[in-house]
């Protein structure tokens, strides 16, 4: 049989053909274009349309960027330079305004010799949160994280170092009270941990810090809140509010999950009321009404009022994010903690919250991005955020009439900040997903 098969086939190639190049339409750029751009009539139309849109936009605004003027001290000067080149004032951008005022747009009225302080504060912030954000960092760094807010306060506002030190000492007092009183009675311990620091802060911290300051005036030059502006203001409001709102938000989320109806419904009411009303209304409340709600004669600066309001605002949003994290935990975790005989706070502290918060971090970062973008609204109550400063720059005789250049600069800055943070939260989400599989 074997020979019949060999002979019944008329032709058998005995050697391999030499490799030839694939057809032109199946390789390289052409293949890629055919598959990705012109795979069907609809796709072709879409491609051509998209390319046309891109071309149209670039042809409209490209020359304006191309002809931009960077060396001008005022708008008039800039227009003269353009006119000397034979162009009208619409043909070229005047980015001279950015060169002239970029420090103001970024630092506001912060004293120029201390620009390093906000920059350092931002670096400290990044170092401080790195153990939270990247779990490869050593755990011991969490102690540094706790110190971060005080260091940042000191760097940004300055003043004597004793006051932030005393505030931090208050937490120490609470911790010691907890340690000392808990063995006697658990409840006494937690009460002491709350009340003693409060007493310390209210009645002792101020005078002690005052005494220490007069004794050893160590510290930085004090910079009042009014000097804050531009992106520094946006970042300070955003970061301070997010840090302060985290504990509050966690408490609210726990309250919303609580079995105790009064606690539950007051948490729900608070969250819904805050979330139901636009931030701009809350900001007007901070600026117009907060003084009504405080004891007569109380008065403190607008930035602090805004921070308080924004903190309450973001606490409600953080609460919802954390609630999502709590809900995502399998019930087994709660039951497991209960079956070990843990008290409510023990199970929350040791079992539930560490896991829930880890899931919530991307949501918290997204909340921060939203908050950071929303800080632009403070312009409507007279604070100099980047957009407010743009208005102030345009009110100077040099730059009156400038428009697009400032907004483009501000937009690009915001984009860089928000885009990179958004990428980070995306990376985190993917990582969490991988870990869950």
């Amino acid at each position, binding site marked *: 049989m074997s020979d019949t098969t060999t002979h019944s086939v008329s032709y058998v190639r005995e050697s391999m053909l030499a490799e030839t190049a694939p057809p032109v339409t199946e390789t390289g750029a052409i293949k890629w274009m055919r598959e990705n*751009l012109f795979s069907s009539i609809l796709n072709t139309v*879409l491609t051509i349309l998209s*390319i046309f849109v891109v071309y149209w936009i670039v042809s409209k605004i490209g020359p304006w960027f191309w002809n931009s003027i960077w060396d001008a001290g005022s708008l008039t000067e800039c227009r003269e330079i353009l006119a000397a080149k034979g162009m009208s004032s619409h043909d070229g951008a005047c980015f001279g305004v950015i060169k002239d005022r970029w420090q103001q747009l970024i630092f506001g009225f912060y004293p120029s010799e201390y620009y390093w302080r906000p920059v350092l504060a931002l670096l400290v912030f990044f170092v401080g949160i790195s153990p939270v954000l990247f779990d490869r960092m050593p755990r011991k760094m969490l102690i540094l994280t706790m110190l971060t807010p005080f260091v940042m306060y000191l760097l940004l506002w300055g003043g004597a170092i004793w006051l932030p030190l005393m505030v931090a000492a208050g937490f120490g007092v609470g911790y010691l009270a907890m340690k000392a009183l808990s063995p006697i009675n658990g409840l006494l311990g937690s009460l002491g941990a709350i009340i003693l620091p409060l007493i310390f802060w209210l009645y002792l911290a101020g005078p002690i810090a005052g005494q220490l300051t007069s004794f050893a005036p160590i510290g930085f030059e004090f910079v009042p809140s009014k000097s804050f502006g531009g992106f520094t203001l946006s970042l300070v409001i955003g970061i301070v509010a997010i840090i302060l709102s985290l504990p509050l938000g966690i408490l609210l989320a726990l309250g919303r999950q609580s079995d105790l109806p009064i606690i539950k419904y007051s948490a729900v009411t608070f969250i*819904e009321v805050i979330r139901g009303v636009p931030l701009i209304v809350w900001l007007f409340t901070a600026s117009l*009404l907060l003084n009504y709600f*405080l004891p007569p004669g109380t008065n403190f600066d607008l930035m602090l009022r805004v921070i308080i309001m924004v903190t309450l605002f973001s606490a409600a949003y953080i609460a919802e994010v954390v609630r999502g994290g709590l809900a995502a935990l399998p019930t087994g975790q709660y039951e497991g903690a209960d079956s070990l005989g843990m008290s409510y706070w023990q199970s929350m502290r040791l079992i539930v919250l560490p896991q829930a918060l880890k899931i919530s971090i991307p949501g918290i970062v997204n909340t921060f991005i939203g908050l950071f*973008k929303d800080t632009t609204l403070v312009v409507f109550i007279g604070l100099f955020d980047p957009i407010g400063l743009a208005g102030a720059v345009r009110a100077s005789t040099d730059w009156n009439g400038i428009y697009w250049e400032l907004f483009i600069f501000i*937009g690009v800055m915001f984009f860089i900040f928000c885009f990179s943070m958004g990428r980070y939260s995306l990376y985190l989400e993917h990582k969490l997903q991988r870990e869950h599989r």
Partner: protein
Amino acid sequence: MSTLTDPPKPAFRLSQLIYDTRYRSITIQLVALVLMVLGIGWLVNNTVQNLAALGKDFNFGFLDNPAGYDINQKLIDYDSQMSHGRAALVGILNTLLVAILGCVTATVIGVIAGVLRLSKNWVVSRLMAVYVEGFRNVPLLLWIILIFSIMSESMPQPRDFRGDEPAASMILSDSVAVTNRGIWIPRLGFTNSLSGNEAVASVEGVPAVASGGADWALIGVTLLISIVAIGFVRSRSTRIQEATGVRPTTWYLQLGILVIPFAIVGLFLGMTVVTPFLKGFNFTEGTHLRNSLIALWLALSLYTGSFIAEIVRAGILAVSKGQSEAAFALGMRPNRTMNLVILPQAMRVIVPPLISQYLNLTKNSSLAIAVGYMDVRATLGGITINQTGRELEGMLLLGGFYLVLSLLISSVMNYFNNRTQLRER
């Protein structure tokens, strides 16, 4: 046999309030309640003291006083002699208008962008990625200002339309005028208006054509009756189909029921299309969509649309790949696969975050302040508060309005959400 004796009932001890979990919850709640009441009382007390110190009272009487300012976009009758309350109502309607328009277009833009971003076409998906990231990462306020300025810079002025050789001309056979003050589009008017044409300021050389509320009410009622009647026809044909297996052809009947009464009412009212034309400084007649409305609407839709696009994309990606592969295996075309297989499943993932985007859009409409769109924050929360000095009352009303609106939207949407969720299981 030993008899079971009831264990002695322990007398209630005060310490149980702290140590016994049954009572402890009551204790905690009572303490919380007392603290809360004290806190609220403290705030109210402060407010009363502060008001007294400033010599102000707390009453809403200012709402009845004449407002004294004009509002450009008014959906109901309003002039400067009417009350602050009326001005607030005009603002409320304007807020609702831009919120509804914004939600609709944001959804359309978001769905298209979300689907296109998953397209295999490289250029298209990149372009959509640029759109989504660009809008998501720059503050909405900046977009509103930029779009508003771009519109007023790049569109022609009304006077460019004038002269023998105008620099600009109306589009769509001279019925729509696109200017840098907004867009004028034709409107429906009624020559036999129920509210009479005398009230309408007549323009030289053109007969006055009113479009009163009564006319629209009549048309609305007619359409409603038609739709109910169509419902009857359809349920009847469903019954026949169930009984005989053949569905009777009724499309011409349905069309007739819809069109004929409408046409009769239209004829009776003398319905005509009124096109805008240039007179004096501006176009007149027609409906004027102001720049402030368009800029706000566009910015809100594009901004929220970029978020919705991401939601839609995530929703589609959440549908397992097997579903689309199975659909393709059955020979379904990509379009039908998307419509019949993927989107219905993706909706379950999409709807809840979509609701919160609608809420955000509604709240963000308060950024109207940046372009001078006269929403409720601009009328009640802006000029009224500023002219009367009633910030406490005004802000309370304003906050209350937004709160009620948000709760309303979220409860309605949650209702729909629950229904779709239930049906799928």
